[in-house]
């Protein structure tokens, strides 16, 4: 078919495999055929552009914008968006979404019998600064049950969606909280096979980010790139 060996999971890549038996939803959604390599087309290497007019400063405070304050533990989540060489990724879009403090999403498909909070939607976004930094104010999400297996519970987490400077760097991931005993039994967290890589999904309590008498601060740096080496260079296709 082609002289190029199709790619499977890159050795050493941090990402989980598509097919992950412990995570039931992969069963009918993970492709069975190997991924195909793409030649490095220069044009494709650039990335989408979001303008500041689309993202307002208030969008980074998930505790505002409703009639009252949400219930739960107010927290600050901050960090830096970096490329694989450790350089800041500037002016790029960071989006988050999460459950409320009771572990319930503001979403029609969430059937967990925990209360919705009329003062919490759980969706925010911002652009990174000159130093690649971002900062959100929110509440700590609750753990919640899901139907993956008997008595399955997700550890508290915040979904992150970030853009790098190229199409290749696009990343959606989840941030967890330090010391959560549910991490050890969560198939999604554990889908990352390399332990050191999985631990990079866990934020750190940070007293410099914490605001005295107001909110605990957690730091979560996001490093793009390194999703496997360039496959075989500009290959013969």
């Amino acid at each position, binding site marked *: 078919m082609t002289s190029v060996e199709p790619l499977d999971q890159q050795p050493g890549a941090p990402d989980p495999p598509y097919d992950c038996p412990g995570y039931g939803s992969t069963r009918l959604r993970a492709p069975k055929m190997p991924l195909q390599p793409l030649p490095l087309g220069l044009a494709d290497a650039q*990335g*989408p552009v979001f303008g500041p007019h689309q993202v307002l400063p208030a969008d980074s405070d998930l505790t505002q914008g409703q009639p009252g304050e949400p219930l739960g533990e107010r927290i600050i989540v901050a960090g830096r968006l970096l490329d694989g060489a450790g350089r800041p990724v500037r002016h790029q879009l960071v989006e*988050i979404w999460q459950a409320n403090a009771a572990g319930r999403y503001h979403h029609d498909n969430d059937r967990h019998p925990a209360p919705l909070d009329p003062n919490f939607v759980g969706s925010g976004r911002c652009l990174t600064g000159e130093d690649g930094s971002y900062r959100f104010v929110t509440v700590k999400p609750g753990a919640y049950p899901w139907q993956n297996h008997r008595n399955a519970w997700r550890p508290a987490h915040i*979904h992150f969606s970030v853009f790098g400077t190229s199409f290749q760097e696009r990343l959606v991931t989840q941030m967890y909280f330090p010391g959560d005993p549910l991490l050890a039994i969560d198939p*999604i967290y554990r889908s990352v096979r390399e332990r050191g890589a999985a631990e990079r999904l866990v934020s750190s309590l940070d007293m410099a980010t914490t*605001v005295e008498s107001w909110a605990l601060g957690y730091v979560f740096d996001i490093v793009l790139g390194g999703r*496997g080496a360039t496959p075989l260079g500009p290959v013969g296709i």
Partner: protein
Amino acid sequence: MSSLDQGTASSPPTTSSPSRGATPSQTAGPFVSLGTGWAATGRMVDEGTSGAIVVAGLVLDGAGMPVTDAMLEFWQAGPEGRFAPECPAPWTGFTRALTGPDGAYRLVTIKPGRFPAPGGQTQAPHVNVSIFARGLLQRLVTRIYFSDEPAANMADRVLAALRGGDGSGRHESLVAQLDGDLYRLDIRLQGERETVFFAPW
């Protein structure tokens, strides 16, 4: 923001992670629309814009059932074959769409031009697609080509490699068929006629 909050604006967060390896991917989960839906218009241009086309289809799982909770991102060159920001604003070449209860997506755009490939060749007009959903621990990356570009498609090296000499013809899973006034392409995550997915790195 409260005043207390602003009081820390000058102290940047400390860097806590000693290791600088890449952050792994995790699934976008079933509620991806909550965080990304604000920008999911499915339109690169307004409907009715001169030259606008519609690409539509279903996202299906390995049992042939609709994937009702996916978020698709589209990224493409402009009609002259260049990517933003090298083509005139307001063109960005980027948009998103959520699948509906029937698993359907719909993209309103302008057909991209051919653009250069390594070695002095050109790539056939295509749209890059990323798919995020519950059950996808990483995004899936695919492409949408156009059935009414037979010469460009025949010369395209990515399609050629998939066409194969053995008649496997997997390239067909990437070619949207012109059907009346729209292009149709279903995306099959798994199973017979599984769509071709690419390693995006």
